[in-house]
């Protein structure tokens, strides 16, 4: 007597866990305040770095200040979902090492879902606000016309762009199923995201291929944002980015699940 668990079921469960989680978070106000402050600090620091760079160099690879700012805002928004919904990846290696991970395997639901549902990171919302503000500011200065179609494009491409970073972090986190002490992979991949806010035209040769198709940071902001920034001259890869995003996400999910199957749970 197997019960059917569809998308509706999962959405419902996620909502319920989220509500409970938020309720209990309210009781740790000090933590919330400090974490939010930390999030604002990182965003501010990123912004300061950006300003210092432009203080010294007026253009980068033909991109002026406002276009770069747009790209920056775009990357911040695209990086929000990975921060909000997939933050538990950071705990994966500790759980795997201590053997606590096994508890996610005893429920009749998808292990990946169950694991990720446990943490919703509210701090990511601060980043979202910061990103939207930056996009709007740059948008006004560049003078892109505001039409429903452009807005729709923006939303769709932001959403699919976010899948790339999720995929990168899934894979980086899942390495811990095979490699002990692989924590640094996650740290460095998370630092790679800082490069998503620069135009990928700066890369050449084999590394252009690597940063486009293997560690796809070029898709976190550059390619998808071209649909808005250069409407007359959109490269094929930009149009393909939603499809590629789905493929990358799916592959990372499969890799993560493969790790669960291959792992021998000796940590106990």
């Amino acid at each position, binding site marked *: 007597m197997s019960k059917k668990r569809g998308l509706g079921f999962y959405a419902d469960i996620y909502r319920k866990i989220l509500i409970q989680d938020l309720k209990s978070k309210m009781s740790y106000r000090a*933590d919330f305040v400090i974490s939010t402050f*930390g999030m604002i600090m*990182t965003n501010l620091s990123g912004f300061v770095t950006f300003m210092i760079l432009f203080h*010294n160099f007026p253009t980068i690879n033909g991109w002026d200040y406002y276009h770069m700012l747009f790209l920056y805002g775009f990357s911040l928004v695209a990086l929000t979902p990975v921060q909000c919904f997939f933050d538990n990846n950071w705990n994966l290696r500790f759980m795997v090492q201590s053997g606590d991970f096994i508890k996610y395997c005893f429920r009749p639901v998808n292990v990946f879902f169950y694991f990720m549902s446990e943490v919703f990171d509210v701090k990511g919302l601060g980043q979202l606000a910061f990103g939207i503000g930056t996009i709007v500011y740059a948008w006004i200065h560049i003078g892109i016309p505001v039409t429903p179609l452009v807005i729709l494009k923006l939303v769709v491409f932001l959403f699919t762009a976010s899948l790339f970073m999720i995929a990168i972090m899934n894979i980086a986190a899942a390495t811990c199923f095979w490699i002990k*002490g692989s924590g640094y992979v996650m740290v*460095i991949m998370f630092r790679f995201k800082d490069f998503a806010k620069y135009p990928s035209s*700066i*890369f050449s040769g084999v*590394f252009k291929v690597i940063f486009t198709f293997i560690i796809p940071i070029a898709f976190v902001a550059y390619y998808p944002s071209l649909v808005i920034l250069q409407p007359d001259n959109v490269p094929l890869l930009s149009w393909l980015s939603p499809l590629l995003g789905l493929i990358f996400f799916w592959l990372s999910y499969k890799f993560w699940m493969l790790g669960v199957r291959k792992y021998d749970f000796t940590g106990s």
Partner: protein
Amino acid sequence: MNPRRLIALTRAGIMESLHFRLGIFVTLFANLIYLVLVYYLWKAIYDSSGTDVVNGMTFTDTMIYLILATALFNFLEMFVVWDMSRSIQSGKIVLDLLKPMRFRIYTFWSYSGSHVVQFVLTFIPTFIVVMIVTGGAIKMGINLLWFVIATVFALIINYSIEMMVAPICLYTESTWGINIVKETIVLLLSGASIPLAFFPEKVRMIVDYLPFRAVYDIPLTMLLGKNGSDTPEGLLKMFGLQLAWILILTVAGNLFWNHAVKKITVNGG
């Protein structure tokens, strides 16, 4: 302090680090890719600027500075804040306090093993690669000695900053928040993410006297022989700044720790 104990701690740390063998190779590889990213970004930046020297830094200087900053970052990296919060939550902190050594010294030396491994496996290879690739841009003289001394001081300052921040865990459970604030401030104001030479004049006036600069910027500036570090006065000023901060942070850190530790003895962890 018995040096045999300290060496034993270092040795145990080295063995523990080596235990994660694939992790070490992966770290090396990931670092390499990170360096490629840094290279392309700054190449594009310098190409766009039209001049070879910006704020006294050539492209090669900037590259050496940033790459070695990353290598230093790996070398200096400590997880004192995380470790402390975990051992507070599990109650292990009580055991650490019972060890026949002062906690501050014990923690420092239990990290020394991983410092040694990181130094040999990441810093030295990176340094050699940079030296060969840039073809003699790093002067081979007395500046190397200054660099090594400044790095040792940097290690102590970095640890002191960690030990300033870590006891906050005794007052709040927000480890992530504390750690990210610390990391962000250190990375930005120490020159690890962008060389301090690029900071606007007025900001530099302040940043120059903060302890963070003593962690990355001072050793690297000495290595490159910039900013007057090739003159006796310049050297004296920089070492003076490092030593002053070591003194201040150690005294302040000890006071804070003694105050914080009362919380454990009162609350029982």
